[in-house]
């Protein structure tokens, strides 16, 4: 008890200690007295980096879409014009845009359909260690190398690859041939067809769809489902009337990723797919081989505008809470 003896018996130490002195003491007192100063000091480096390097670059890009290219010399004419946007609306380019948007929509739809059972099972039935395992089972493919994942599908879809072999064993080779003979979706083998591009897209973006749907479903109380079946709804009706509306924000949140990522990708269609261009490939080609930076810049505005509308719609559906 001696250290904690009554204060009165110990004489009076001053109540207020002096500043600890030196630069550290002075700075510490200054930060305490002026919290705004500390805040500005903390925010300055990240804001300078992101605000100047990143936003600056984006603006520079946007600006270039209003320049034009001289068709004879190939030099960039730095004068404000809407000519490049006119070029963007040529039939060939509109084709590219439509093709990309249709692909993005189909990929999103397929991802949602495949993701839902996984997310539902993980949210509703998985417990304890199983839950952790499910989580990792989605996280590991999400984070494993993008290129390796694309490469894996190149292996699988190759003419001499495992899928052809498997279908042959099942005596379904004719089905594959019939599918490949179809216009648009077919090709000489799956790895050079639009179907192959589609499968690779779905595979690579699927985890981005599972996680938000699971997050949305975690928030649905299980007794809602019980209440619905208690009131006489069939499982199908319960799904349509209860689960789907409540999971919708999650689906929309996930679709932001699948849609946006598909719109901007140029590597998957380059490795697995036909020679028909997607927006990303067009941008890459225009800025690279063609050297037409203004048109490339104008092309990038397309996904930005589409995603702008998409995000605006998603926000109205409350999808951001599920991110």
């Amino acid at each position, binding site marked *: 008890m001696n250290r904690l003896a009554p204060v009165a018996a110990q004489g009076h130490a001053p109540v*207020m200690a002096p500043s600890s002195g030196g630069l550290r003491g002075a700075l510490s007192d200054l930060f305490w007295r002026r919290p705004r100063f500390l805040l500005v000091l903390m925010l300055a480096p990240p804001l300078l980096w992101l605000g100047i390097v990143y936003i600056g670059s984006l603006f520079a890009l946007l600006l270039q879409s209003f320049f034009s290219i001289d068709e004879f010399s190939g030099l960039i004419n730095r004068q404000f014009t809407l000519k490049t946007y006119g070029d963007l609306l040529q039939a060939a380019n509109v084709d590219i845009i439509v093709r990309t948007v249709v692909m993005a929509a189909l990929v999103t739809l397929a991802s949602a359909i495949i993701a839902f059972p996984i997310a539902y099972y993980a949210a509703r039935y998985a417990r304890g260690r199983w839950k952790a395992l499910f989580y990792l089972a989605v996280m590991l493919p999400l984070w494993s190398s993008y290129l390796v994942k694309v490469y894996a599908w190149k292996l699988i879809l190759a003419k001499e690859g495992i899928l052809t072999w498997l279908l042959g064993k099942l005596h379904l080779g004719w089905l594959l041939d019939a599918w490949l003979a179809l216009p648009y979706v077919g090709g000489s083998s799956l790895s050079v067809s639009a179907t192959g591009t589609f499968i690779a897209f779905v595979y690579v973006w699927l985890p981005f769809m599972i996680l938000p749907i699971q997050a949305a479903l975690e928030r649905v109380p299980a007794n809602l489902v019980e209440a619905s079946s208690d009131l006489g709804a069939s499982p199908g009706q319960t799904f349509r009337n209860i689960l789907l509306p409540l999971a919708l924000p999650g689906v929309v949140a996930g679709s932001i990723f699948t849609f946006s990522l598909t719109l901007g990708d140029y590597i998957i269609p380059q490795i697995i797919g036909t020679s028909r261009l997607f927006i990303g490939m067009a941008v890459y080609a225009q800025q690279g081989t063609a050297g037409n930076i203004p048109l490339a810049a104008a092309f990038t505005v397309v996904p930005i505008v589409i995603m702008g509308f998409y995000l605006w719609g998603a926000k109205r559906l409350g999808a951001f809470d599920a991110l």
Partner: protein
Amino acid sequence: MTSAVSFTRVSRYFGAVRAVDAVDLDIAPGEFFAMLGPSGSGKTTCLRLIAGFEQPSSGSISIFGERAEGVPPYRRNVNTVFQDYALFPHLNVLDNVAYGLMVKGVGRAERYRAAEEALALVRLPGYGTRRPGELSGGQRQRVALARALVNRPRVLLLDEPLGALDLKLREEMQEELKALQKALAITFVFVTHDQGEALSMADRVAVFNEGRIMQVGTPQEIYQRPATRFVADFVGSSNILPPDFVYRWSGQKRWGSLRPEAIRVNRSVNQEGVRARLVSTNYLGAMIRLALDADGLRLHATVPAGVVLPAEGELVTLTFNRENLHLMEEGA
């Protein structure tokens, strides 16, 4: 004698909100002082002003005669027991208690010895190696107390110290805190919204409402002679009597208060007194609480359990001793 804590017209504004509004306050050295009030009444802001987490918008604060404005909390020899205890989750109990000595540069052996002593003082000897997460609510509170006391603060601040504990533990801790404060002779300032806690532990109580102090006094003064309707209403269950009613009994047109236990309930209606109708009865264990309607005025009376009660709806006569009718400062 210098006050332990002295507020001179202290205000603290948050934007347009006056959390603390021109408060004058003096806390004597060695006093167990309670700040009582509903949430948002400014009592916690006052505590944070003493600790140094907030700075006054105007007015001045001194602690043992030394000016406190502009002095950061880490340079004040004042310590706080937080409402959520705020134990560091990454440190064990001993390191938690020794934290204050560690940052002051006290050597390892000495600070651990002091921390062990402080733990013994709060009756948790040998708990040093545990993690805060392994302790019960009551034990965490004792650790928080030891962590503050080991620094030998001149003023100890307690923010709703018993709020998170269950009833039995709370009563136990009330006695223990009181005994500890007596033994250490440190000035304790504690904030609570529980009037029972304030009245039973404190030497003096300040009742807060809307950023102002309504009344300061001993628990007896606060309980028996509330200065305003708010105090009478908030501290316990007094009947508040309107000026017209008070005028009939005292000749003064002022608000009055009357403790429920001061009211006698008579079943005869011929007697002189206040006519009332019994509305309902509530059994409280040792006492029974009666709700009465006196011509539109709702009154409460408590009678010992076991007396024969009138039936609900029955007319009764209420009487009381004139000296039990307390006239408040608040006029009509």
